[in-house]
């Protein structure tokens, strides 16, 4: 055998590297055992123990820290360790719509819908933009995309006469950026979550992001963290006293509509009445100080009526029903008011305009969002709910009146946030402190100064996240330095996650969880024990068989197979591969392949021996003649592994990796290592038997008669 020295050198080098790589798993395992002993079943204590030593040198001689060690351990997959896997789908239709500035073109929107439908069916492996352009051209063969997309924002990139393919490549470019940004954002969020061995991968072709979080025990928290769009906005607000007339008007509009509906005929005077009412009220809302007097009074009286009836008899269903007809809105939305000692009920100051039970919020939303009601409201006003009930014991939510400024609406948006962290407010409850960049700080100062300008009527600024009002503090003084905070009955974890999400920035496009799996750790424990045990038993059975069938040569094969497993694990660890159940199956299969190579060689050696060759020559020829079979067989299996790796996902890839590495190490072991051992035995003059009496049959080459 040529190059024996080289083979020996490589074998020893590989062995040393593998021992070093596997030692991390060993050290890490021991430390975790220590932690378990120390904590005696208390998981928080265990975690604290591990955290405390994460920067301490724990690795002998080299003095690596525990953190370093744990990163180099053989990582177990979700199915073995338990945890959570999530697939996020990035929706590009929204991005395309935004780029067209919400173009209302029928063909354009139809093409978008068709493309989304195709993607949702999942049968076509094309990216969204290509599909969209295809669909567009299908619907309108001569249609041009350029006019749709050459909006004010895009006109530098898309000329009005640009060809469709130019538009397509521009869209693709932006889509790529959006996908990449989503990936980076989610990455940052996961980093902040603090999971060891989290695995995040992007599939650009299908715009999916796969996330694996081993050991995660709170799936709800992860879902919230990942799917939060984190659209943070700061709004000016309307005072309740300005907003009440609007609500009152809506209420009477609804009542009129209900009445009209009841009469069942269209010729009621409700319609013109509505119109005049709307017109009046717009003025009222725009100049609340003037118009408040008359309207306010009637409103106030109704308000007290509602409250009275609410207070006096709630069980009288008929009365309530008639109230619902008379005041559809105010029967479910209680206006924000207070009754001073001995005085008359008055509207409460501040941006809160009303309270409602959680079960009524959907109905109120449908009222407020209906077309004709929207038309009756001042364009600068919208209503948003508070994020949490005002009292954790009840389910009563607050409705805020938000003032829109300029085209966008909010006075300041989340992009200005530079940094965010969890902290505690004066009352000691968790809050999120946000630090703005200089631009944002400047604006924030102007906004707060404006809000605090009128000493008698200080305004509130609403902090809104994903269209929920987190808080709307009254601004007493202008705030310099660009620091603001969000509080809202957070738990510490919620505050931490929110800070994390704000810091990572918002997702550029809508991204939703399209698949998720939680593997209970108990199931994982069970699976790991079962598969490890079966591996060991399987190995044992095969090794016993090899020795029984091939005698002393069989022991050589056993050594080769064991060395193969050792190398395989070492290489897997050093590549940072994650061991999963299919991975374990891959290892088992590799064992089979490794044994097969030895069987091929030994069968061949036996044939050579049967031809009357000497042991030395029979071994040499046996290896030589078996080589092409072994190589061809292994290369074709390797190719299968490669295809699996390229086209497969998640678990299939894990299987493919173990298979490919296994084939490589098994070739090395069966062709080279066992050869070296056999030649060593020959040199020592040992008698190498290739069979036991029961398996020893001289071979006769025969010709089959046909």
């Amino acid at each position, binding site marked *: 055998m040529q190059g024996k020295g080289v083979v020996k050198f490589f074998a020893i080098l590989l062995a040393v590297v593998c021992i070093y790589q596997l030692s991390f798993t060993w050290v890490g395992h021991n430390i975790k055992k220590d932690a378990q002993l120390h904590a005696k079943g208390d998981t928080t204590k265990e975690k604290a123990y591990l955290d405390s030593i994460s920067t301490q040198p724990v690795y002998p001689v080299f003095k690596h820290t525990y953190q370093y060690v744990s990163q180099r351990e053989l990582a177990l997959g979700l199915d073995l360790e338990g945890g959570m896997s999530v697939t996020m789908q990035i929706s590009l239709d929204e991005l395309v719509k935004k780029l067209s500035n919400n173009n209302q073109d029928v063909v354009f929107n139809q093409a978008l819908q068709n493309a989304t439908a195709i993607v949702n069916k*999942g049968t076509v*492996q094309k990216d969204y933009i290509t599909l969209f352009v295809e669909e567009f051209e299908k619907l309108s063969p001569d249609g041009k995309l350029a006019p749709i997309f050459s909006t004010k924002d895009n006109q530098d990139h898309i000329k009005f006469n640009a060809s469709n393919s130019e538009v397509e490549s521009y869209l693709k470019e932006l889509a790529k950026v959006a996908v990449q940004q989503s990936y980076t954002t989610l990455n940052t969020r996961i980093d902040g979550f603090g999971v060891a061995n989290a695995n995040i991968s992007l599939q650009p072709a299908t715009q999916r992001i796969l996330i694996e979080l081993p050991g995660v025990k709170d799936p709800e928290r992860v879902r*919230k963290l990942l799917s939060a769009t984190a659209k943070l906005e700061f709004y000016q607000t309307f005072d309740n006293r300005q907003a009440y007339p609007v609500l009152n008007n809506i209420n009477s509009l609804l009542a009129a509509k209900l009445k009209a509906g009841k009469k069942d005929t269209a010729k009621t005077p409700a319609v013109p009445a509505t119109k005049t009412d709307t017109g009046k009220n717009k003025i009222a809302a725009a100049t609340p100080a003037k118009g408040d007097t008359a309207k306010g009074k009637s409103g106030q009286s109704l308000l007290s009526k509602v409250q009275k009836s609410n207070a006096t008899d709630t069980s009288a269903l008929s009365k309530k029903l008639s109230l619902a007809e008379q005041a559809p809105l105010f029967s479910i939305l209680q206006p924000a008011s207070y009754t001073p000692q001995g005085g008359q009920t008055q509207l409460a100051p501040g941006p809160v305009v009303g309270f409602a039970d959680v079960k009524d919020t959907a109905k109120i939303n449908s009222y407020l969002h209906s077309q004709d009601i929207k038309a009756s409201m001042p364009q600068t006003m919208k209503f948003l709910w508070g994020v949490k009930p005002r009292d954790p014991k009840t389910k009563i939510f607050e409705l805020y009146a938000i003032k829109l400024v300029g085209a966008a609406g909010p006075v300041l948006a989340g992009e200005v946030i530079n940094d965010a962290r969890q902290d505690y407010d004066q009352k000691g409850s968790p809050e999120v402190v946000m630090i703005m960049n200089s631009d944002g700080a400047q604006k924030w100062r102007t906004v707060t100064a404006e809000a605090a300008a009128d000493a008698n009527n200080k305004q509130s600024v609403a902090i809104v996240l994903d269209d929920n009002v987190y808080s709307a503090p009254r601004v007493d003084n202008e705030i310099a330095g660009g620091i603001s905070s969000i509080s809202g009955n957070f738990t510490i974890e919620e505050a931490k996650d929110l800070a994390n999400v704000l810091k990572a920035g918002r997702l550029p496009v809508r991204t939703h969880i399209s698949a998720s799996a939680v593997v209970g750790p108990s199931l994982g424990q069970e699976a790991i024990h079962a598969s490890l045990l079966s591996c060991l*038993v399987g190995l044992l059975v095969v090794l016993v068989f090899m020795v029984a069938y091939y005698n002393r040569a069989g022991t050589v094969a056993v050594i080769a197979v064991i060395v193969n497993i050792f190398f395989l694990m070492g290489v897997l660890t050093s590549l940072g591969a994650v061991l999963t159940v*299919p991975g374990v*199956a891959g290892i088992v299969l590799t064992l089979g392949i490794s044994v097969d190579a030895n069987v091929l060689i030994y069968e061949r050696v036996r044939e050579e021996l049967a031809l009357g060759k000497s042991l030395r020559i029979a071994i040499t020829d046996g290896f030589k003649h078996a080589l092409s079979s072994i190589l061809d067989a292994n290369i074709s299996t390797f*190719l299968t592994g490669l295809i699996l790796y390229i086209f497969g*996902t998640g678990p299939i890839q894990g299987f*493919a990796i173990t298979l490919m590495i296994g084939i490589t190490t098994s070739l090395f072991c069966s062709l080279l290592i066992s050869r070296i051992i056999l030649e060593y035995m020959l040199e020592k003059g040992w008698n190498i038997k290739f069979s036991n009496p029961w398996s020893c049959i001289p071979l006769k080459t025969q010709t089959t008669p046909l």
Partner: protein
Amino acid sequence: MELHTFKNANYAFVKNRFKFYIFSSVFIIAGIISMSTQGFNYGVDFVGGHNYVVKFNNPNIATDDVRHIVDKYLGEGNEVKTFGTDRMSITTKYLINSTDANTDAKVKEALIKALGTNEKTKITAANIGSESKVDPTIANGLKKSALLTVIFAIIIISAYIFIRFRKWQFSLGAMIATAHDALMVLSFFSLFKNALPFSLDIDQAFIAAILTVIGYSINDTVVVFDRIREFLHLHHAKTDEPKVVINDAINNTLSRTVITALTVVLILLVLFIFGGDTIRGFSFALLIGVCFGTYSSICVATPVIIDFGKKDLR
């Protein structure tokens, strides 16, 4: 005592090849009919839906009872299967098209509530061992990509065989053998989908199993092919008659083929018996796949060369 089974092997594989063809054809045709009529049991990876593995407090509940209860409250189309010895796997399509962030929690809540309507099936969240959700989108994509992967693997391997053996007959033999094995396993999983005490689900792991079977089968087939090539190149060969050469090659490698199959089957048997419920279907697919693979390389792939080859294979 001598064991003559393999060493003096002299079985007329080539002569009897038509019997094997008929057996395989009948099985595969029956399988295809079954696939088109009763289809498969798809795992949640392929159907799309929410899947929960539930351990009931009461061990004597029938899957049918659970399914009726779940169907009643979450709509039709739910799947309830036994999972291991003491658990059930429940897959529901309830709210599957909703992209609302709280859907997962809602479905879980609805399931617990539905099961809670009957005293016997009452559970709490603690009874749910694992849960997973797959969008129909992903499921469809997976099915398609799995099929493509299999076809692609077969093509690539055939191309490799063609490069190595320089004869399209070998390539075709390999292609038929691999397609045969994949179809046999698929047929088996469709024909016996409800006949066995464990689930024969088509899921991601099943695809991995099919591909492993293809890899293994090609491994087996190539070894026999290699021997044929060797015999054809021997100048002192007694005969050029392809039928004789090929039958000899099969018999000569039979010992190796069977021993290798035996060792792999041993490992897989252990994996199947002790490997746990999660990979039982997977190891079963591998197990029957390896048996079919061994059978195909001996009885189908190699004889096929004769029926497509001319008189002389040199």
